[in-house]
């Protein structure tokens, strides 16, 4: 009985999707954009970055040009910095709470993020790579 209900539900969902897609096509609506709109309504992608002496984790991230994302920064030990000068981002990362930074990469390329809050003798090596692709 349960199995039959599931099949009926899936058939209904598939039919509704076909009808919706057909309606969108007749009215000149780009379904790809429709999907993007639906995704955007859920909010930008969140990328978690952890800082501790003397490294960022992950040490490398890739973003898409023009895609809004949230960089969620946390520290596992002490105050660190997060400097991405080409994007005018310069923030402290304070232990105990997350720091959210909204960024929409304006241009493709490779960038270096550094910790610019002195954190000890290995501070100069604390960096991560950020790549922006099309």
């Amino acid at each position: 009985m349960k199995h039959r209900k599931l099949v009926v539900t899936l058939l209904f969902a598939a039919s509704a999707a076909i009808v919706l897609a057909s309606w969108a096509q007749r009215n000149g609506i780009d379904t790809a954009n429709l999907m993007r709109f639906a995704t955007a309504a859920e909010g930008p992608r969140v990328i978690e970055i952890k800082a501790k002496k003397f490294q960022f984790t992950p040490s490398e991230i890739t973003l898409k040009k023009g895609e809004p994302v949230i960089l969620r920064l946390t520290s596992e030990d002490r105050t660190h910095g997060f400097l991405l000068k080409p994007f005018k981002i310069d923030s402290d990362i304070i232990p105990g709470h997350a720091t959210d930074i909204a960024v929409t990469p304006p241009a493709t390329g490779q960038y270096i993020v550094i910790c610019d809050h002195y954190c000890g003798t290995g501070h100069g090596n604390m960096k991560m790579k950020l790549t922006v692709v099309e």
Partner: protein
Amino acid sequence: MENKIDRRSFLRIAGSSLSIGALYSVFAPLARGAEGEVLTRTMAALNGEPPAPFSFIQLSDTHVGFNGPPDPLGTRAFEGAVAAINKLKRRPELVIVTGDLTHDADSPDEHARRYKLFKQIAGKINAAQIKVVPGENDAALDNGDMFREFMGPLHYSFDHRGVHFIALDNVSRGRPEVGAEQLAWMKADLARFSKTAPIIVFTHRPLFDLKPEWEWFTSDGDAVMNALAPYENVTVLYGHIHRENFHQQGGTKLYAARSLIFAFPDPATPGVRKPLPFDKAQPFKNLGLRFVKGQRAGRDLRIEDVELTMNEYSGTVGMDQMLKHGTSDTIEE
């Protein structure tokens, strides 16, 4: 009379490489002759005291306590610099040290020991005054508490022979910044002076975006430079980058000095910042001193590059003996 006088030529700062730091000669180049006397009187009336010729030395980034790759020489270059200063024919009236006097240490006791060693070596300098500012290794982890205890205030100003010196701290807040409070202090300090007053600012980090991805900048450096901009005779001396550099912003000239520990590469070098490798054959290579003197009433500059030689370590002493005290320690800045 004023039309005949180039006020900007009144203060000449020069440097030549003696491999130990930077020796600056400050001139009142027009002080000779009738026109110069008028100018001197004018400047005295405007600024309170007429600038007079004197020399001073800038040392930087001694990193006392650092002893390992890329430089296994410890304090040898610093001690060599002190010896070279003490051999100068004219005793300098003033020595300034632009930060990172000590190398950071995890243990406060060890860091305190390094401060004591810095003071012990610097105490041998035959100069009337030694003035210092902190580097991030000295003051960034404890907001400058230990620096205050051993060396004194983090920022201050003083006058010397008609030149106004401002010691600026852009490290003790942890971040590369001066901060609103210190900036307000500096503006109030400057307000006492005429726009023609000779001013020398000394600090640790560059006050402009030399290479932010190598942390060679000060985040509120623009605000500092804007506050200095109305003044006609401003020179900024700094360290941190472990190499010579010259930059001009408006009428303000900014000079970086070599370090006394190891050198960093040219900021035009792509990629990550790595210290230049130690060269056993030339252990003091790139650890330099700049020595410049004004000529012909300060209109021209004579620049001498003098390489610190290894003579004192040759023969029976030898390089191997020189290196033997080195212990392992890792650091990159």
